[in-house]
């Protein structure tokens, strides 16, 4: 059975951005594995390191200014060790990525159909004509109405929702095993966002690919994820199935995030908040990064970064206050 081999293995990944004045510790020891066909949401606020982790998987970070440590394996290959040719084959082939703003991902002066045809021709070694035929199939796959006509459109001629669908078509053009989606629905209108989420869910099921979906929106995670990883200050503080984490969070940060998300709370009462602000990534506090804002923090929280603990199968949190927790040797 192929399902038993993980598609993605990330071990102790850390990313520092080094400049003359400062050393920003964007990612500080992230571990996760993903099985084929799984949808994982990385949830976190701005600056929590979720997009940087995504970019590290594709090796899209600026090589001169970023120091990457740890091990990343995708489909059995070591991403850190890849040469230029292997990297080119992986990007768009095994792994592809969609972004928040499709306008910046497309070339504004080339028709969208030609851009997709070019990618297919490049990766598959087929003719442009064949690539264009494939582009039409893809436009039908992502349910773009009158696809024939839309292939000849320039990116600016498409509405926001269609542009995002076209970017999904581009990303799927070489049947990737892993799709990285970095806030792909955040810039969309509410009535369009739900359409794109439902489309992505259906495509994921039809094509059986794995998806890592980066979002700051708990509602989006509830709609699409099998598993969630909650990130705070460059660390995964909690993972588990979306059901478990949203219904019974373990980490105080996850609980705080759930409580402070405005969703049908009574109007005559104050909203629950997490006091303070996320830490400065140039100067992280010792120990648990959430301790300065945590209602349950005690002296021991500041001594060392809490080790991952697993109180029940499939669930992991990095918090000393999680009851009945067994220290974990290996991060699941």
């Amino acid at each position, binding site marked *: 059975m192929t399902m038993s081999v993980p598609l993605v293995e990330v071990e102790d990944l850390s990313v520092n951005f080094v400049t003359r004045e400062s050393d920003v510790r964007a990612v500080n020891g992230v571990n996760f594995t993903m099985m084929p066909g799984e949808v994982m949401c990385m949830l976190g*606020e*701005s600056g929590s390191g979720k997009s940087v982790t995504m970019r590290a998987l594709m090796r899209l970070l600026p090589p001169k200014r970023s120091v990457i440590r740890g091990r990343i394996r995708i489909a059995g290959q070591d991403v850190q060790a890849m040469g230029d040719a292997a990297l080119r084959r992986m990007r768009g082939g095994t792994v592809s990525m969609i972004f928040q703003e499709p306008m910046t991902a497309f070339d504004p002066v080339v028709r969208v159909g030609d851009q997709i045809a070019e990618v297919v021709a490049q990766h598959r070694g087929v003719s442009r004509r064949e690539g264009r035929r494939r582009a039409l199939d893809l436009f039908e796959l992502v349910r773009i*109405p009158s696809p024939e006509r839309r292939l000849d459109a320039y990116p600016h001629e498409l*509405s*926001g*929702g*269609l542009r995002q669908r076209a970017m999904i078509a581009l990303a799927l053009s070489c049947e990737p095993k892993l799709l990285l989606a970095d806030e792909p629905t955040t810039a969309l*209108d*509410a*009535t*369009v*966002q*739900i*359409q794109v*989420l*439902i489309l992505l*869910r259906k495509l994921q099921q039809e094509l059986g690919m794995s998806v890592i979906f980066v979002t*700051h*929106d*708990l*509602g*989006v995670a*509830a*709609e699409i*994820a099998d598993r969630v990883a909650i990130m705070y200050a460059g660390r995964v503080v909690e993972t588990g199935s*979306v*059901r478990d984490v*949203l219904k019974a969070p373990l980490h105080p940060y996850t609980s*705080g*995030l759930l409580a*402070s*998300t*405005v*969703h*049908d*709370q009574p*109007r005559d009462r*104050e*909203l*629950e*908040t*997490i*006091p303070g*602000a*996320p830490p400065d990534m140039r100067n992280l506090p010792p120990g648990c990064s959430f301790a300065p804002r945590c209602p349950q923090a005690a002296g021991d929280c500041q001594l060392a970064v809490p080790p991952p603990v697993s109180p029940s199968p499939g669930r992991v949190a990095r918090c000393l206050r999680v009851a009945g927790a067994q220290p974990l040797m290996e991060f699941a």
Partner: protein
Amino acid sequence: MSFATSPIWPPADPRDRGGPQQPLLMVRGLQKHFAIRNGVLGRVAAHVRAVDGVSFTVHKGETLGIVGESGCGKSTLARLLMRLIVPDAGEQIFDGDAVGVQGGISVKDLRRQAQMVFQDSSSSLNPRMPVQGSVAFGPMAFGMPKADATALARELLTKVGLNPALFGGRYPHELSGGQKQRVNIARALALKPRMVILDEAVSALDKSVEAQVLNLLQVLKRELSLTYVFISHDLGVVRWISDRVMVMYLGEVVEIGPADALYAAPKHPYTQALLASRPSMDPDRRREEAPVSGDPPNPVNPPPGCRFHTRCPHAERVCSARAPVLGDAAAGAHLAACHIQNPASGHSLAGRPVLPALH
């Protein structure tokens, strides 16, 4: 009328002219079309009908929430209310005085009484001025001595939860997004306004910080008896903060009503679709079908008749033939510009009290 005894309306405000019953703001038929020019001669090729005949009232001490998708005209409306852009047509009456006309209230005076907070907290602060200076700038421009204005700025920074000794001398780049937005709120309050227009003021903030700023806004509103116009695309936030909610679509008001009534039983199919498009927050009750398909049409050439008819599940011939009217937005009424709400419209569902469920 004895508004002096009302606990919400301190008689201390000498600027209150009409008493609590008179709306603080009345807008009738407000319209703004932007011309699209092209060619070497710059001829007008088309108009973006950003705000197209919008009427509503804002009562004293209430929060009116305005929701809608991008391009529905909500931000243009906010700028029109502050006269940052000049309307093509329509009138705006602030506490009984017409704005910008002979015998009414001047735009300068309007801006003393109404202030605005924008979405982008960085670009609305001067990067080369300590934030305390930014807060004091408005009062100084209106003639307050520098020492008094600085004292006021420090008091306001305390009010919005920033220690002036620590933050007053800092520059905007030394503050986080939430702290900058607190400074913007302090600056908006520096002229002691009666109305504050918040245009996506919390949308760019992280969730944990957003809740803090929303709580702050509610406290300030109570303490300073403010009136808010709160513009957002976030339906959850608007519900929590608003007394009444107005829904816009392609430059028009499609529905207005008390927040609870509008969320519990929307009268316009667009409002219904917008509410049903919210993610469920429950992985066991995921949405299987999108409530409506397609994107909002381009406001350059809005569809004839009801502008929502191209996406509406209940559209009939009457919907593309005639534009439905909202009716007179009397105090507190729950109204929708939809033929289904008008028994005489000829729509087959007309007069039904409750809209059929979507999917």
